[in-house]
């Protein structure tokens, strides 16, 4: 390993690193290391002049290896690889030492920090000596896109990709599209009706020839990698022939279970039968048979009133689950949110007092096609004279979710307006902080204040019943007094939470979740749409709670990411992967079971492990576990790692 010419570049990252680590000292000492011919420190290595410095040194001083001591390689390893390539070196002859996240950001002790930074640099210098040039592979991109979830974010993304002329497979778990937005009545801050703006888009989805829509369907398996995913989708039987069904509803009228099952779409405020039409504007507008409640399907015993009523003979109880397989180049995940179950906070009386409801139930109540035909009514059918709206139920609360759900302040203000608009009731809003930050939002808040709504600064602490009437207990913090406010109806504005099956979805797609449970984006500020897995993008509330404008914006952003790789036509994939030395492999199969990407198989003839290079992501799990040391991961081989450890400990 002698005769190598290594350049070391220590980045200050402004004061991010240099505020704690003595960068010039690190550079000075690194200059003394064996093989190092250039050692410099600079304010921002990732800047243009920083990169130019590396390129110039490669050319002028004949460097053949480069170490950059800076931030985590996550963001800037590609930057510096490009710089090396610009200077004429293979990008993999670079090693980064992370002296920001691993050093300056985790200590205040300047002396120890400088020592550790130097140790990491020594490790990197030792390691880079063993680096070999690696050529990146380029693969063609399949120009179809998979969109999972057909709420407003998924619809937006699907339409945009389809309108650009590319194939979209749109997968929706429910029997209809539109997601939560389809349940809303009015939308803030303009109060246009949700259906008026959403329905045309839903119809477009149904009619766009580039979109293949699969409702009642779930993605059960994803194989492959960016540009070339193979997706397996399970479609549940609907027991309805879609070609024949006109959505007339005769089956629903005939069903002997009619008006006996709480209707999900109305959040339990109305009842339906086992055969039903989800809602009048549903896309697809086809009948649904609920296999959990249909007497024929559950007990094999029914008068078959629905079959008799259907003039088009569209009902078919012999339908089975169907499995579909699609090849796509990218995947957009838009699975939305679940609403916090207010029963988890029993102090609010949800589920105990009939006139305590959640926000979605209120949306259904005010919706003209909802269970009360748009009237705000108490359980006994009368109009409330006094209504409380409680913010932050399940949000901003260590006991449930620490995060702010972002939409509830504005939807609460909207609810208040709706009550004022529909009834003569007094309205009391209990809030901690009013967060009305969007375009036109503060103006809307102002308008509703002037409509006479009582805004009480204090979190509603408890809902009780006193003398037959509900009371909200809270502190009016601006008054500094405990108050009990009697009301007839309480609306709990509950948190937006990750879907209950988010972990399963994350595992199926091989993506990560953040501490709050939502899917994790690549970079919270600069890359909020891509996941840490290339080719998989996020849109809408599955990434974090957001309102309609933001969901739509992110849907469009995800679509443009998909369109970008389609336009390029090919993608580079990481060349770092594992390989098996057949002479050393004992065929024990330990690696087969451990591989998180199912890339390893046992060759039945040779009885040796075999790794599918296209699927392998180079995570190294197999190499670490292999008892005979037969598996090697390129760019992470034993010589490199041992040299690095020796360097750090030197």
């Amino acid at each position: 390993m002698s005769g190598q010419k290594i350049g070391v570049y220590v980045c200050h990252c402004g004061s991010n690193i240099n505020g704690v680590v003595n960068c010039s000292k690190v550079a000075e000492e690194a200059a003394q290391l064996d093989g190092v011919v250039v050692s410099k420190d600079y304010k921002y290595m990732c800047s243009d002049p920083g990169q130019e410095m590396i390129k110039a040194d490669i050319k002028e001083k004949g460097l053949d290896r480069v170490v950059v001591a800076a931030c985590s390689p996550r963001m800037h390893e590609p930057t510096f690889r490009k710089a090396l390539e610009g200077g004429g070196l293979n990008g993999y002859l670079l090693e980064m030492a992370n002296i920001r996240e691993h050093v300056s950001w985790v200590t205040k002790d300047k002396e120890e920090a400088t020592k550790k930074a130097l140790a990491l640099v020594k490790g990197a210098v030792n390691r880079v000596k063993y680096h070999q040039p690696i050529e990146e592979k380029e693969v063609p991109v399949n120009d179809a896109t998979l969109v999972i979830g057909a709420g407003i974010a998924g619809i937006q993304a699907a339409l945009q990709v389809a309108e650009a002329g590319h194939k979209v497979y749109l997968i929706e778990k429910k029997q209809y599209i539109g997601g939560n937005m389809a349940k809303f009545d009015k939308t803030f801050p303009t109060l246009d009706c949700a259906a008026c703006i959403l329905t045309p888009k839903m119809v477009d989805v149904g009619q766009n020839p580039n979109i293949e829509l699969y409702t009642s369907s779930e993605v059960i398996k994803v194989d492959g990698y960016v540009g070339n995913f193979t997706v397996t989708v399970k479609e549940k039987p609907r027991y309805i022939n879609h070609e024949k069904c006109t959505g007339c509803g005769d089956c629903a009228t005939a069903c002997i279970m009619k008006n006996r099952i709480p209707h999900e779409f109305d959040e339990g405020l109305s009842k339906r039968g086992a055969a039903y039409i989800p809602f009048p504007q549903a896309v697809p507008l086809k009948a649904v048979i609920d296999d959990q409640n249909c007497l024929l399907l559950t007990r094999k015993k029914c008068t078959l009133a629905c079959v008799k009523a259907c003039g088009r003979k569209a009902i078919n109880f012999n339908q089975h689950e169907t499995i579909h397989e699609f090849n796509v180049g990218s995947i957009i995940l838009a699975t939305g949110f679940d609403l916090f179950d207010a029963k988890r906070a029993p102090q609010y009386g949800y589920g105990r007092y009939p006139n305590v409801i959640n926000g979605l139930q209120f949306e259904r109540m005010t919706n003209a096609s909802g269970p009360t035909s748009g009237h705000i009514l108490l359980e006994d059918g009368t109009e409330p004279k006094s209504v409380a709206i409680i913010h932050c139920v399940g949000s901003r609360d260590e006991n449930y979710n620490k995060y702010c759900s972002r939409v509830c302040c504005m939807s609460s203000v909207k609810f208040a307006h709706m009550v004022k608009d529909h009834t003569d009731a007094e309205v009391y809003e209990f809030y901690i902080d009013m967060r009305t930050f969007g375009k036109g939002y503060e103006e809307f808040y102002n308008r509703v204040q002037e409509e006479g709504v009582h805004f009480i600064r204090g979190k509603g602490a408890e809902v009780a019943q006193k003398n037959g009437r509900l009371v909200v207990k809270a502190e009016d913090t601006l008054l500094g007094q405990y108050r009990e406010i009697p009301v007839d109806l309480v609306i709990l504005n509950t948190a937006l939470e990750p879907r209950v099956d988010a972990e399963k979805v994350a595992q199926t797609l091989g993506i990560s979740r953040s501490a709050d449970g939502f899917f994790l984006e690549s970079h919270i500020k600069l890359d909020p749409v891509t996941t840490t897995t290339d080719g998989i993008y996020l849109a809408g509330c599955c990434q974090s709670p957001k309102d309609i404008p933001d969901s739509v914006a992110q849907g469009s952003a995800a679509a443009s990411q998909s369109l970008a790789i389609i336009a390029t036509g090919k993608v580079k994939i990481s060349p770092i992967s594992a390989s098996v030395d057949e002479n050393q492999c004992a065929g024990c199969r330990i690696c087969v079971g451990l591989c998180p990407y199912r890339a390893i198989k046992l060759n039945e003839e040779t009885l040796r492990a075999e790794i599918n290079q296209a699927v392998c992501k180079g995570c190294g799990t197999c190499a670490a576990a292999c008892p005979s040391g037969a598996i090697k991961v390129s760019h992470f081989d034993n010589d490199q790692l041992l040299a690095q450890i020796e360097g750090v400990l030197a």
Partner: protein
Amino acid sequence: MYKDFTDEIMSYPGGEKIMACMQCGTCTGSCPTSHAMQYTPRRLISLIRANQRETVLKSLDIWKCASCYTCTARCPRGIKFTDIMYILKTLAWKDQLMEENKDITAFYSAFQDLIAKRGRMNESELVLKYSLKTNPAKLLEFGPLGMKMVLKGRAAIIPPSIRNQKQVQKILELAKERGGE
């Protein structure tokens, strides 16, 4: 020794999260006695953070805490306000800052004296001591109830005691010597 009152509160177990309070008033709204307080729990936190030590420790509001822990269970920021109430009471007691209230002083000291004397509590003796320390006429108030309790066999006539009472006395004294901190 302490930078300010907040610093002092934070030095005790249970007081450390006081800076996280967002003044939402969940504590007050959940408190069964806040309706009778001049300074509500949320306001007490504000007063502590504004370094108004004397105002807080003088106030009898802190002695209205029933130790039900509802504020603690519900606080969205994980503040153990019941523990903070205890801290405030101990400081008021130690520095003798609390506003004069014979009932409170007499009851708490009678209880504490009894533990030191016998190692265990006994309600009859507690009520007797308490009444004598405040207003012997109180015995008339407690009288009928006391009689009922005696008749139902629910009053210990012979005060309880423990074998190693000296040890209990010693640990209480040692704790007191250390300023109770």
